[in-house]
Every structure is written in structure tokens, then in C-alpha cells.
């Protein structure tokens, strides 16, 4: 498995588990959980500062621990805002990688496919490494690939819902058709969900909420790391086919009868 690296835009990753930094109770737990996950790519958001209530500096511990940063465009409601957010993030974090997310609807946070494609084209032309968060839409994913995206990040279920993979059949088509890495993002609520995505042939998964809100975020992050490794190894090993009827695992010869 050591040689089984994931390559995105020329960058190699040993871990196929990407993580987010949101919703952790405190910074110490977040850093410990991210370390336990062995993740090498972590997402961050960008916010217009509230001068009266400044946020903690979470950047320093992430950089200190050698994490690669993937800023997102969360909060953008259309392509224009997302491009602006990506440019700000590039300045703030000094990276041209961006998780492009445009979800104007606050209830389900479902990504806007039209604005996402528009923004992806613009950002790719501006030299960004674009990883768009999208619905599990195989046609859209091919358009995004043509637009120059470095990977696609189709959802399993709505962000933070912990519902697991509700889009399995469409993810399978996306994985089958993609010539760029497929990172299943959003909705993965348990290690088994992550393992399933990897068994299906996803190149990586991104998990945030399920780790951050767990009773023990560090232990849960470790469990996700194991699940992702197990799912990947199972995919590479080649899963056996399914059958409607039983297929005996032991010989059915009548050993009690005389030979």
C-alpha cells in the first residue's frame, strides 16, 4: 500500500483522507484529531473579520504540524463571489489550491451547478488548482474535468448531515467516467461510510463533521483513517461479485456417506 499514492495536480498524498477544521470544540482537540487522521490536506474557510470579536488564530498550529491547506469559498453565493473569495484565500494562505463551493441555499447547502461551473472555468484559467464541491452529477463532473479542474468532489449527502452515501449509483458513474481524482465529500457520518466510498473506487474522501462532533474526536479520526485504508485496500484487492442465491464456502460432498 505504501506505493499507492494519490496524485492531485502533481502533488502526492499518502493519506486518502482529507479533513476539515470546522466544528471542533477547541483548537487542541482539532489538532490532535487531524494528527490522528493522518490527513495531509485540510480545509479552511475565510471570513470577513468582526472587529469586535476576533477569531482564534488556527493557522499557526496547522502550519506547525505540516498540513497542506485547502481554502474553501464557503459563503459565496455565485461565481463572482467565489472567484473573489478564492483570490482572497490565495493571498491569505499563499496557496493556489481551492475547494470551490457555492451553495446559496442555507437549508440544504446544495451546490449550485451552474455558478460552480462558471467559477471553475474562470479559476482554472487564473491558474488555480480547483477542487469543486458538487452534487453527484456525472455530466457536470465531466464538464468540470473539461474546464480544467484538478479533481471533483461530489457529495454523499448534504453537508454535516452524517447520512452517509445516498448517491451511490451516481458516484459509481462519476468514478467510472472520471480521468481526474474523485473525492467523495459531505455527508459521511461514520467510518463505514468512508470505507464504502473507497471500496467503490473513490480516490479519497473528505470528512469533517463526523470527526468534530464525535464523543471522542481523536478516536473517531483514527477510526476514519483505518476505514479509508481498509476500503482502499479492498478496492485494490478486487471485491467478489454478489449473488442472489447462496454459494457454498465449504464442500457440499456428503462426507458422512461412505466414499
Amino acid at each position: 500500500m505504501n506505493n499507492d499514492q494519490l496524485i492531485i495536480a502533481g502533488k502526492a498524498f499518502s493519506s486518502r483522507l482529507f479533513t476539515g477544521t470546522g466544528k471542533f470544540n477547541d483548537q487542541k482537540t482539532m489538532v490532535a484529531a487531524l494528527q490522528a487522521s493522518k490527513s495531509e490536506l485540510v480545509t479552511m474557510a475565510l471570513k470577513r473579520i468582526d472587529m469586535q470579536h476576533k477569531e482564534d488564530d488556527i493557522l499557526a498550529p496547522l502550519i506547525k504540524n505540516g498540513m497542506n491547506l485547502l481554502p474553501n469559498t464557503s459563503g459565496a453565493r455565485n461565481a463572482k463571489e467565489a472567484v473573489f473569495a478564492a483570490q482572497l484565500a490565495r493571498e491569505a494562505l499563499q496557496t493556489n489550491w481551492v475547494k470551490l463551493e457555492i451553495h446559496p441555499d442555507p437549508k440544504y447547502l446544495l451546490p449550485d451547478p451552474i455558478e460552480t461551473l462558471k467559477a471553475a472555468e474562470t479559476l482554472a484559467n487564473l491558474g488555480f488548482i480547483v477542487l469543486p464541491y458538487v452534487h453527484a452529477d456525472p455530466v457536470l463532473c465531466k464538464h468540470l474535468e473539461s474546464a480544467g479542474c484538478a479533481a471533483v468532489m461530489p457529495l454523499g449527502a448534504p453537508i454535516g448531515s452524517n447520512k452517509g452515501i445516498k448517491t451511490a449509483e451516481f458516484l459509481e458513474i462519476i468514478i467510472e467516467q472520471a480521468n481526474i481524482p474523485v473525492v467523495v465529500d459531505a455527508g459521511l457520518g461514520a467510518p463505514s461510510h468512508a470505507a464504502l466510498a473507497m471500496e467503490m473506487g473513490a480516490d479519497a474522501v473528505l470528512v469533517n463533521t463526523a470527526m468534530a462532533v464525535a464523543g471522542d474526536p481523536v478516536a473517531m479520526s483514527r477510526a476514519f483513517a483505518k476505514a479509508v485504508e481498509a476500503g482502499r485496500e479492498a478496492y485494490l484487492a478486487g471485491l467478489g461479485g454478489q449473488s442472489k442465491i447462496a454459494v457454498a464456502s465449504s464442500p457440499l460432498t456428503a462426507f458422512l456417506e461412505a466414499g
Partner: protein
Amino acid sequence: MKITVNENIVQLDDKCNIEQLLIVLESPLKGSAIAVNQKIISRSEWVNYQLQENDQVSLFQAIAGG
């Protein structure tokens, strides 16, 4: 001179560049991004970019997010 930072009025010395502004605001230099009058100012320009009276500064910072 008077400028606004995220809609808050800030009084500064007459000569102030962006890096000096962040120091005055006690805002971290790392993880921050700045737009002046809706135009993003690249980090490499911060030291040379002199703020002007009535400039509208937008200050952004990297925060936790998924």
C-alpha cells in the same frame, strides 16, 4: 486620516501602509487578506501600499471550516 475597516471607522497617522494597519489593528499578518475599495491587494504590495483618506478596507482572515 480616517478610513473604514470592515465598516468600522479607524483613525490612523497620515502615512500608513497596509502592514502598519494590521499591526495597529493587532491582526495577524499570516492568514490575512486585504481588499481596498473592493480591490485585492497582494501581500507583496502591503509594505508599499499607502492608504488614503476614506479608503474602505476589507479585512479577511482564515478560520476553521469544512
